[in-house]
C-alpha cells in the first residue's frame, strides 16, 4: 500500500467516522512514515476481516489500522490488500490453504471476522498462523464498542507483534508532546497534546501563550506532570489526562527554577529541579506528604533527573565537570546512598537521559563537534552508540516496550518528531501539519 492510498484511505475513514460518530475527533494530525526500515522485514498477510453481517458498520477498518501498525515498526512487510484478494479471503482456520500463502512467501497470516452483538457492540475473533508450519499461533476473541475500534485494532497489533517477536507490543499507547505555533505580532501559542501512538486522536489538554515544557507520564498513564510559564515564571503542574475529574493542580511555585518533573516508578514522588537555594539542585517531592528532600548539593547546574525502573538510581545532567555530562546517584528508600558518579565520558555534551524500560540502556542527547544527536549508553559495558544522523536532536523517550526511542529534531527549519529503533536500524519521521512539535513523551503500557 503506498502513501497516497494510505492518505486517501485515512481521509475516507475520517469522513466515515465523522458521519457515523461526531464524538470521535479522530484524524492523523501526526503522520508517521518509515524513512529507513530493516532488510528482511517479515512478510505477513492480514486478510480483510469479514464484516458483511454487520448492521452498523465499524467507524474504522480494523485491518488497515493493523497493517499500518505493523508496517510502521519497519520489522513487518504487510501484503497489499489487492494481492491478498487474488490469493483468497479466508476468515477462519478452516478455510485457509497454507500452500497458496507459501507460494507467495508469506511467513504469517492473520484472519478474522467481526460480529454485531448490540447496536454499538461488536465482537472480533481472529487467528494468527505460522504459514510455513501450517499451525495456529494464537486465536482470540474480544468484545468492543464502536468508539473503541481503533484501540481494538491496536490491541490486535500488540498481540500479533508479541507472538511473533516475543516482545510486548506498544501500539495501544499514547504520546504526549508540546506544539508551538507562532501567531500574529509574535504572539505564540503553546499546546500540550496527546495522540495515539499512530498519530490519530490528537487532543489538546492545555493551551497557553507562554511556554509549556517537560511533560512526564505518571506510571499508571493517567496523569501528566509538566512545567508551565503561564504566570511568567516556571511552575510544575500535575494534570489528570483522561478521567472525568480532569483537574490539574500546581505542585510547586518556588523562587527560581521549577523544572524537569519525573515520576518515581511507584508514582509516589516527583524528582524535579528547583533553584530556590540559589542554584539548580535535584529534589524529591512526595506527592502525598508534599515534602521535599534535597538530593544534590553542588554549585554547578544539576537538572534533568531520570529514575531507573527499579527506583534505586537517579541519573541527572550536571556541568560540575565544566561541561554538561550525566551523573548517577544511588537511592535507598528515596534517600541518597552514594555520591554522584560520572557516567559519560565521550563527547563534549551528554544530557537529558532516559532509562530504557528494562534499565539496561540510557538514551541521551549526545553533543560532539557541534552536532547534537540521540545516543544510547549500554550500562553493562559502557558502550555508547549514536543512533541518529541529524544535528539538533533532543528529548529522547523510550517506547514502553523498549523497541523504539521517540525524540524531537529539526527538519527544514521546523521542529518535528522522529523515532529510531534502539538498534538504530529503523527510522521513522513524525510530522504535524503546522507549527513546531517537541518534547515527546511516550506513555506507559495501558493497563490490560
Amino acid at each position, binding site marked *: 500500500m503506498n502513501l497516497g492510498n494510505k492518505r486517501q484511505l485515512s481521509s475516507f475513514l475520517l469522513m466515515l467516522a465523522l458521519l457515523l460518530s461526531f*464524538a470521535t*475527533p479522530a484524524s492523523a494530525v501526526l503522520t508517521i512514515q518509515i524513512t529507513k526500515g530493516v532488510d528482511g522485514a517479515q512478510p505477513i498477510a492480514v486478510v480483510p476481516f469479514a464484516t458483511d453481517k454487520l448492521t452498523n458498520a465499524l467507524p474504522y477498518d480494523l485491518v488497515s489500522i493493523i497493517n499500518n501498525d505493523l508496517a510502521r515498526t519497519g520489522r513487518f512487510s504487510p501484503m497489499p490488500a489487492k494481492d491478498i484478494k487474488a490469493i483468497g479471503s479466508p476468515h477462519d482456520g478452516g478455510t485457509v490453504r497454507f500452500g497458496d500463502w507459501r507460494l507467495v512467501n508469506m511467513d504469517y497470516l492473520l484472519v478474522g471476522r467481526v460480529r454485531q452483538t448490540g447496536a454499538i457492540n461488536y465482537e472480533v475473533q481472529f487467528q494468527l498462523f505460522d504459514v510455513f508450519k501450517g499451525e495456529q499461533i494464537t486465536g482470540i476473541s474480544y468484545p468492543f*464498542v464502536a*468508539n*473503541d475500534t*481503533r484501540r481494538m485494532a491496536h490491541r490486535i497489533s500488540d498481540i500479533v507483534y508479541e507472538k511473533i517477536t516475543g516482545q510486548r507490543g506498544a501500539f495501544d499507547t499514547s504520546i504526549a508532546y508540546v506544539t508551538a505555533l507562532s501567531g500574529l*505580532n*509574535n504572539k505564540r501559542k503553546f499546546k500540550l497534546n496527546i495522540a495515539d501512538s499512530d498519530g490519530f*486522536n490528537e*487532543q*489538546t*489538554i*492545555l*493551551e*497557553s*501563550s*507562554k*511556554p509549556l*515544557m*517537560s511533560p512526564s507520564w505518571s506510571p499508571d498513564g493517567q496523569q501528566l506532570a509538566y512545567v*508551565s*510559564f*503561564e*504566570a*511568567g*515564571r*516556571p511552575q510544575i503542574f500535575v*494534570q489528570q*489526562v*483522561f*478521567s*472525568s475529574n*480532569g483537574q*490539574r493542580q500546581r505542585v510547586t511555585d518556588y523562587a*527560581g*527554577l521549577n*523544572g*524537569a518533573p519525573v515520576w518515581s516508578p511507584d508514582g509516589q514522588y516527583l524528582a524535579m*529541579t528547583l*533553584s530556590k537555594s540559589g542554584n*539548580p539542585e535535584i529534589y524529591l517531592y512526595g506527592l502525598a506528604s508534599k515534602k521535599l528532600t534535597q538530593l544534590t548539593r553542588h554549585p554547578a*547546574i544539576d*537538572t*534533568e533527573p531520570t529514575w531507573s525502573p527499579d527506583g534505586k538510581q537517579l541519573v541527572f*545532567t550536571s*556541568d560540575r565537570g565544566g*561541561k*554538561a555530562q550525566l551523573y548517577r546517584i544511588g537511592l535507598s528508600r528515596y534517600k541518597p546512598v552514594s555520591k554522584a558518579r560520572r557516567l559519560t565520558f565521550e563527547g563534549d*555534551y551528554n*544530557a*537529558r537521559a532516559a532509562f530504557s524500560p528494562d534499565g539496561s540502556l540510557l538514551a541521551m*542527547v549526545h*553533543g560532539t563537534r557541534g552536532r*547534537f544527536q540521540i545516543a544510547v549508553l549500554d550500562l553493562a559495558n559502557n558502550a555508547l552508540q549514536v543512533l541518529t544522523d541529524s544535528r*539538533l536532536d*533532543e*528529548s529522547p523517550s523510550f517506547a514502553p516496550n523498549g523497541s523504539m526511542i521517540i525524540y524531537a529534531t*529539526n527538519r527544514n*527549519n521546523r521542529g518535528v518528531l522522529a523515532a529510531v529503533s534502539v538498534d538504530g536500524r529503523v527510522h521513522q519521521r513524525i510530522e504535524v501539519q503546522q507549527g513546531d512539535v517537541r*518534547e515527546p513523551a511516550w506513555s506507559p503500557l495501558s493497563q490490560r
Partner: protein
Amino acid sequence: MNHKLLLAAVLLPAVVLSGCETFGGQDGSDVVVEDRGTQTDGSQGVDGQDGATSSGAQAGTAFQGHPLDNPQSILSSRVIYFEFDSASIRNEDRAAIQAHAQYLSQHSSASVVLEGHTDERGSREYNIALGEQRAKAVRQLLLFQGAVASQLQTVSYGEENPAAIGHDEDAWQQNRRVEITYKAR
C-alpha cells in the same frame, strides 16, 4: 477510548488558559519601556521620583529625555551576550552592566528583570538552568557594583523564547543572552 475522547472534550474548555502577564515577554516589555518614556518626557515623573537628579545632566548635552531613553547612552545597551554553554560575562559587556548598576544605585526605586536565554542546542531543561545561571551572573555583577537585591528579579526562559529564528550560529549568538528590562525607572 470513548472515555478518553468524551472526557477530554469536556475538560478541554476548562483547562484552556489565557496566559497572564506578570512580567511578560519581549513585546510586553518593549511597550512598557516606551510608555514610561512618554510619561517622563513631561519631566514630572523624573522629578517626582528622583528629586534633584535631572535627566539632562545624566543624558549628556544633546539628549533632553530620560537617560534610559537616550539611544546614545551606554544604558541603551540592555542585552548581554554569551558563549555557548557558558554563563561567563564577556569583558566587552562589563561597561554596560556597570552603567546599569550605577543607574540602579542612583535610582533606588528603579528595578529590572533579568531574563536569561540560551540558543536551541542541547536539552531544554538544561538550557533553562543555563539561562538562569546567565541571569544570575549579570545579577551578581550588578549587586557587586552597587545595585541592591530588591531591585533585581531573574527569570530564565532557556531556549523557549528565541530573539532570532534560525538554526545557525548567526541566530544562536543572538539568542544566548540576558535581557535587562526596566520594570520601574
